[in-house]
């Protein structure tokens, strides 16, 4: 078999595995969210479809497929239709640089892996804007503007906090950072605890989760930029949101908690375990805290997180590097 064919087949296998994982992850994470929130609220959650309600999402997916596809009359058809795809693509692209073992990376180990991650994850903003603008509806545009302002505000502390980790490790490559933690024997969450907390808060705001879900808050006028999407189009947006959640947690696990490092179990399993632990913490925060207002959201970012992350960078640079 010629070499290029083997490489090509290898790529096909990897992409299929990633997409399969994304699908399974979606089903599992929605079930986890509903069951965890039910437990916190003295309820039971889904318990009829499948054992312990695990197949509930199949029923929901069938329901979404059977809904009428409503196109708003004044929408720009191409922009409106492409928006969910543009929102979903970055979630998949992040998998390219995820290391799953000491010598295994899903794609290639880019030596500017962190830059790639930061660039790709801010692409979701374009998708949200396309959704709001293309819908040509007052509320969608309002929601998209709010989302845009919030996401842009939280990019900077996010990048500064992962820059701290890059400084500690001395490299921008993701595999290199994990390797550095393994070599030094301690995880970067300990010297970079402030960076970890800032990263967590920023990523919850970026995802529109937790106390920062005002962009899709039902108690505001309508569903924001998601108003004009029905059926499976909205299902894709939901899938994008949950996959982004997983990848954000996976990045945190790799940068701060040592990624694939751990005894007995294979590397990718450790990564999944650590990522899901962080996902559960995000769900815990979401169901506990009330929602912040748009101006308080921006205040938090510009007036609190930005100075703190800058200070943290300086402190780490002076004392720990």
């Amino acid at each position, binding site marked *: 078999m010629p070499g290029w064919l083997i490489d090509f087949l290898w790529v096909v296998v990897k992409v299929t595995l990633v997409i399969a994982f994304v699908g399974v992850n979606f089903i599992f994470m929605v079930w986890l969210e509903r069951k965890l*929130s039910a437990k*916190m*609220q*003295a*309820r039971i959650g889904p318990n009829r479809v499948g054992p312990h309600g695990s197949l509930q999402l199949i029923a929901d997916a069938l329901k979404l497929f059977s809904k009428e596809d409503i196109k708003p*009359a*004044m929408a720009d058809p191409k922009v409106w239709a492409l928006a969910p795809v543009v929102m979903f693509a970055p979630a998949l692209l992040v998998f390219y640089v995820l290391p799953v073992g000491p010598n295994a990376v899903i794609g290639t180990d880019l030596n500017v892996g962190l830059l790639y991650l930061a660039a790709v994850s801010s692409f979701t903003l374009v998708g949200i804007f396309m959704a709001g603008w293309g819908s040509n509806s*007052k509320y969608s545009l309002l929601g998209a503007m709010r989302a845009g302002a919030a996401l842009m505000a939280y990019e900077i502390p996010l990048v500064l906090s992962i820059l701290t980790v890059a400084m500690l490790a001395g490299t921008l490559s993701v595999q290199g950072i994990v390797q550095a933690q393994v070599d030094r024997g301690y995880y970067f969450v300990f010297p970079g605890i402030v960076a970890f907390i800032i990263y967590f808060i920023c990523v919850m705001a970026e995802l529109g989760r937790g*106390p920062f*879900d*005002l962009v899709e*808050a*039902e*108690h*505001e*006028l*309508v569903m924001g930029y998601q108003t004009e999407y029905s059926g499976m189009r909205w299902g894709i947006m939901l899938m994008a949101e949950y996959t982004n959640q997983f990848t954000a947690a996976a990045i945190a696990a790799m940068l701060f908690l040592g990624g694939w490092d751990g005894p007995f179990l294979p590397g990718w399993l450790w990564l999944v375990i650590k990522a899901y632990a962080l996902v559960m913490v995000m769900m815990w925060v979401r*169901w*506990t*805290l*009330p*929602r*912040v*207002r*748009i*101006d*308080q959201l921006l205040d938090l970012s510009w007036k609190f997180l930005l100075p703190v992350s800058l200070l943290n960078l300086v402190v780490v640079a002076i004392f720990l590097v």
Partner: protein
Amino acid sequence: MADQIERSIGAGVQVIEDAETMEEALRPAHLEEQAGERRRMLVNFGPQHPSTHGVLRVLLTLEGETVIDAQPDIGYLHRNWEKIVEGWTYAMVVPFSDRNDYLAAICNEQAVVGAVERLMGIEVPERGQFLRVLVFELQRLTSHLIWFGTFAMDMGATTAFLHAFRERERCYSLFEEITGARLLYNYLRIGGLRNDVPDSWLKKLEQFLDDFEKEAYPSYWDLVINNEIFRVRTKGIGVITPEQAIAYGASGPVLRGSGIRWDLRKVDPFLPYDQFEFDIPVGTNGDAYDRAIVRMKEMMESVKIIRQVMKRLPDGPVMAKLPRALRPPKGQVYNRVESPRGEVGVYLISDGGTGPYRIKWRSPCFTHLMLLPVMARGHLVADLVTCIGSIDIVLGEVDR
């Protein structure tokens, strides 16, 4: 103004017939282009909306995201109460009055029953009066629990809603044991109560109060009230100055949140409240946070009163001896009670028959809703939800 309201876009979109193109039909006709000024939008908030306060429609005039004016539009739950009861006997009026403020049914019943008792000069036996105080305060506790749950849910903390309802479910069971119903009781009768309570029920009530005080109540403070996000979202929002509160006729926690110490249980006791010791929590700034604190503290005061009643409950009958057909003398009376929402008043005109000639229901939520434009001016749309939640309206009472 009428056609401006017709064309308002929102949860109910109306098609404009005389538009030339689709664009003109969907463009709101009331957007005024004022040179140099930002445009003002007329937006419809409701009557269906996910805020859980019933069918209320608010016409918002927005400038960007700031609220310039918020006019409530009511009447979606009007059931013609005052006219219907004109043909009925007093015994039939009592269960019907439950349905006004359906979250605090006993308070409504006390207003009606107290009016007739005052007119006829009936003396309720002491055990009956003490038990009335007990269920009244228990009703206040459950009503404030609903306020707490829905207010937290409006803020986004859905978990608190379910925690509040878990305690309320226990109260439902307690009420079901003595009255037979969970929400609308028909328990108070003219001259006393329908039936007495067994001692086993009092023990269950005490168990509930102990659990509430030890576990549930502190968790409400930890989960919501002391939470920084909650404080930031309610402090300084929806300020009502004491002068405004008095001028608009506010009462209950809305009045006390603005710093005025006025509680009908102390000022004009409609039940033997002067035999029990309790405080009246009062706020300072008149914002949503102070009203929230007042209601939370009132929950604990109610628990205190219930405990005192249980300790000093005398024996005896619960119902006074009355003729079968009640005919109050001709006259007029105004009876008021301190319900969890404010001053509920019943103005009763009797013509000597078996039923009322006219009942006028004074609803506190109706009065408080008039404060909405005053409170919401200058705030953002998200704060409008906070303002509505902090005055704790029940549309059944507003519209009757």
